[in-house]
Structure formats: structure tokens, C-alpha cells
């Protein structure tokens, strides 16, 4: 389309170049800082990590191209399988936070005096740092004076050094992680329960639906958005587990409580030397596992967007 080169007879209505094009340019102007930062610190590093995983590199000197060697080495690495196995245990057991959170939410979904304070105090564990949660639980498990072993003592059970025992250590750490995670799921469900349609509940009551049946057929379907978010944050939380392991056991005893996130960190920057390439290869594996969930999440979002 060519604009007629006629002299404009209404000078006040004349639009500057910016005024004519602003609707097209404005979004990019608003997006520029965000895209720039996100590219620099998140998107490009992902590709760089994938690239580094094909090199042997100590982080300082020259990197040598080794092709798929790091990945081949991973396949024979006992510690890698231990970490992978622990990641699976984390993923599975962490899911307990969802029914756990629902249970607590149902317990607290009342209107008695002071219930608001109770709700916020139950949520407490999520607000404090995982470093503090880790210290608290390391202490709770202590074989000499930890509360858990004192309680076990009442039943005549010998003290168990949970964090020094290869078989129990991962479960002990997961239990610590479930504490804040359950609190998170509880809040999601409490908000969800608030939005449940009271008329449907009344209708179901007239049909004599009660207790578990009511929960399963009437309430849970309405809580689906809350459940979805709970699953997303719990999966991400399980795969991101690092802080608690670092604080409570440092991966021990003998590396038995490592997960991929922790093992990667250990390989990349530890006293065993800086193996950036090998660490990056572990990170890529973890990334691919996470990608399954991310893709699922994006797919659901895409469907919702189309549905609008």
C-alpha cells in the first residue's frame, strides 16, 4: 500500500512515525530487557551445557573434545546409577505430599475460632529455608539426643542413626523434604476447597453422598486445578532436591544419598577435581528427565490457551 503524497490539510492530525507504528513496536520494547536477561542467563547456558558435555574440561585450561565419552563413562558409573535410583525414589515418595496436603487441608477446612492462625502456622515449614529444615531434621534424627530416637526408646527400640545408614538415609532426607512440600500442597488444596461449588455439595448431600464417596466423586473433580499445580510443583521439587542433601549428609554415607543434581555439583566442583564436562553430561540427563514434565505442562497450557 502506498501512501498518497498529498499535502496533509489537517496538520494537528499528522502522526509521527512512532505513533503510527507503536502498536507493532511496543511489545518488543517491553520485552527487550526480559528477553535479553533470560537469554543470557537461562536459554544460552542450556545449549552451552550441552556443548560442554562433549568436552573434558577442568574449568580453567583448554577443553578437549571427547565426543560422547562422558556419556559412555556415565553408563558404567555406579555412582550415576545410585543417583538415578535415588531420584526415582524421590519422585515416587515425594508424591505423598499431595494426598498428605489434601488430608491436612480437609482437617483444617473449618470455620472455628482462630482457624486462620492455625492454617498459617501449618504452612510455616514451607516459608523457612531448606537449610534450616535440613538442620532441624539432622538434629531430629541424631542418634544420641534426637527426638526421634528418644521416642523410639519409649517403645524399646534401639537408636537408629538414620543419616549414617546407607539403607535409610535417602528416606530420612525425603521425610524432611515432605514436611515443607506437604505444607505447600495443603495451601493449594485449602484455596481449592474454598472455590468448591456449595450447591453441588448440597445436591450431593441430598443424594446421600457422604465422606469418602463425596470426596472422590464430587470434591476431587472440582479440585483438579489444585491437584495439577500440586503435581507440577512436587515433581519439580523432587527433581531439584539438592539443598537438603547437601546440608544433611553431603551425599553420604559413601555417596549413598546422592541424587543427580547433587552428583553433578560434586563432579563439577569438588575436591575430586573440577570435571565440568562430566558434570554437564549428568546435568543433561537430569534436564532430559525434567523436559518430559515441562513438555507435558506446556502441552496442557497450550490446550488451555486454545480453549480460551
Amino acid at each position, binding site marked *: 500500500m502506498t501512501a498518497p503524497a498529498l499535502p496533509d490539510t489537517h496538520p494537528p492530525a499528522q502522526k509521527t512515525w512512532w505513533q503510527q507504528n507503536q502498536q507493532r513496536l511496543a511489545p518488543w520494547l517491553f520485552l527487550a530487557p526480559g528477553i535479553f536477561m533470560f537469554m543470557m*542467563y537461562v536459554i544460552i547456558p542450556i545449549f552451552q551445557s550441552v556443548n560442554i558435555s562433549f568436552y573434558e574440561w577442568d574449568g580453567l585450561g583448554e577443553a578437549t573434545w571427547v565426543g560422547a565419552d562422558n556419556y559412555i563413562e556415565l553408563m558404567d558409573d555406579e555412582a550415576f546409577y545410585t543417583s538415578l535410583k535415588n531420584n526415582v525414589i524421590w519422585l515416587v515418595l515425594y508424591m505423598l505430599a499431595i494426598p498428605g496436603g489434601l488430608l491436612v487441608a480437609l482437617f483444617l477446612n473449618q470455620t472455628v475460632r482462630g482457624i486462620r492462625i492455625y492454617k498459617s502456622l501449618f504452612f*510455616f515449614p514451607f*516459608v523457612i529455608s531448606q*537449610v534450616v529444615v535440613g*538442620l532441624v531434621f539432622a538434629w531430629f534424627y541424631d542418634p544420641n539426643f534426637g527426638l526421634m530416637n528418644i521416642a523410639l526408646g519409649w517403645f524399646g527400640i534401639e537408636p537408629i542413626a538414620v543419616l549414617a545408614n546407607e539403607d535409610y538415609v535417602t528416606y530420612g532426607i525425603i521425610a524432611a523434604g515432605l514436611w515443607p512440600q506437604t505444607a505447600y500442597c495443603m495451601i493449594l488444596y485449602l484455596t481449592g476447597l474454598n472455590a468448591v461449588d456449595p450447591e453441588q455439595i448440597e445436591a450431593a448431600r441430598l443424594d446421600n453422598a457422604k465422606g469418602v464417596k463425596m470426596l472422590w466423586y464430587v470434591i476431587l473433580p472440582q479440585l483438579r486445578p489444585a491437584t495439577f499445580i500440586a503435581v507440577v510443583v512436587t515433581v519439580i521439587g523432587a527433581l531439584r532436591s*539438592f539443598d537438603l542433601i547437601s546440608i544433611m549428609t553431603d551425599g553420604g554415607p559413601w555417596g549413598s544419598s546422592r541424587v543427580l543434581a547433587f552428583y553433578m555439583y560434586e563432579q563439577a566442583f569438588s575436591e575430586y577435581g573440577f570435571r565440568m564436562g562430566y558434570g554437564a553430561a549428568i546435568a543433561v540427563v537430569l534436564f532430559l528427565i525434567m523436559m518430559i514434565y515441562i513438555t507435558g505442562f506446556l502441552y496442557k497450557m497450550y490446550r488451555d490457551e486454545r480453549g480460551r
Partner: protein
Amino acid sequence: MFPTPIEKTSSGAQIAYKIALPVALIVWLLPLIAVALTSVRSAGDITAGNYWGWPTSFNLIENYTAIFEQTPIGKYILNSFKVTIPTVIGAVAISCMTGFALAVYKFKGNLLLFFMFVAGNFVPFQILMVPVRDLTLDLGMYNTWYGLALFHIAFQAGFCTLFMRNFIKALPYELIEAARVEGISEIRIFWYVVMPLMKPALAALSVLIFTFIWNDYFWATVLTQGADQQPITAGLYSLNGQWVAAWHLVSAGSIVAALPPVLMFFLMQRHFIAGLTLGAVK
């Protein structure tokens, strides 16, 4: 309401509920109560193994003064604020703009860009670790609060964009159209029409990001070292190593570290919860 409101049940059930409530709370918070109690014990109690009995003396002031005098905990806390506050401001500012752009304008690649922010927000930290550390070293920002804050701003932009975009999308679009008809420029629409409506979203995001960043431990260990620059989470970890057996001090330190986000939560509870549900559950 589900479950059945307790007022409509038998008086026996009502009494049982009123007893169960505080009991459940104490059990739930037992580990934390133990820490709070230990933080006021004397060193004598700790060596005597009196962890659970009544404290022989209450050393609240002594212990909390001791950690500030004998350790750099004050410095750690200051560092945490230096990282957290700029991150909150930066991430929220950036995402107001990205959220606005993605919610209001229709252009090619809109959804793709939005998904990039969302996906990036869920990525495991380890895939970013080595390149981000290198980038920070190259920029000469390794072991500085601003190096750490800059990374946090960029990473949190993902989550914040998701939140802001959905929030702005739910605002009445007619407002923007009306402003355009009036001939108001896009930038002024952003500032004078949309921003005033975003106050609840700003509050929600600010408290959430504050808590997330305050509690960050992983990036603090990757991008900083030493008491001069490390925030409280990393600081607490190293103090824990130095204070073996000084449990009354470790627990006092833990309480101090936990206090700012806890206060934040209590002051801005409703906003905090709105943020946590990702705006998806209303």
C-alpha cells in the same frame, strides 16, 4: 462446604476437633519448637545433655547476642538483603513489562516466547550452573552480591512473567481499547492504565520472590564464597560446621535466618498465597 462444618456435628465431635487442632499443630511443628527451645538454653544444658527437659536457665538474650558477636551472622544477613531486595525489584520490574507485552499484544511468536519463559523457569539449576558461573567470572562479578542478584533477576523473570502475563490477561481488555481510542500512547497505557491495576500482583510476586531468593542456597554456594559476600543460607551451612556441639548457637542462628521470610509471610499472607497458587486456583 466440605467436609461438613464442625458446628453442624454432635457436640462430642466438636470438642474432639477443638482438642485435636492444637495437638496436631504441636506435632506438626515439633521439630521447630525443639529448635526454638534449644536456642534459649545455656551451654551447660547442652553439655549435660539436657535437650528436652526444662531449661535450667533462659539464655535468650545471651545466645542471640553471642551469635552476633562471635560470628559474622550479621554480615550474612546483610548480604542476604543486598541480594534479595534488588532481585525483587529487578525481577518484578522486568516481568511487569514482559507480562504486559505478552498479555496485551497479538504478534507472531507471542505464545512461543511465553512458553520459553515458562519452560526456562522449570529447568534444573544444574544445567545452567557451569555456564552461569563462567559468565559471572567473565563479567568480573564472581563472589559479589550483584553477580548473584543479576542471575536471580534473570531466572526469576521466567516465573514472574508467567504470573504477570496471566494476571494482566484477566484484566478487562476494554480498558486498553478505550484508552487507545482516546489516542493515549502505548507506554502511557502501560503506566497509567495497567500498572495501577497490578498492585495485588506486585505485592504477591514481591513476597514470593523475596522468600525464594532469601532461601536460595544452591546459587549462593555456586556464585559466592566466604563470609564477606555469602548470604545467610550458605553462611548457616559453614557456621554449622564450625559450631559442632554448640547446638544452642546453631539453633539461634537458624531462627534468625528464618525470621525475615516468616515475618514477610505473616504480614502479607493473602498475597503470598495468591502467588503460590500461580494464579491458577482462585
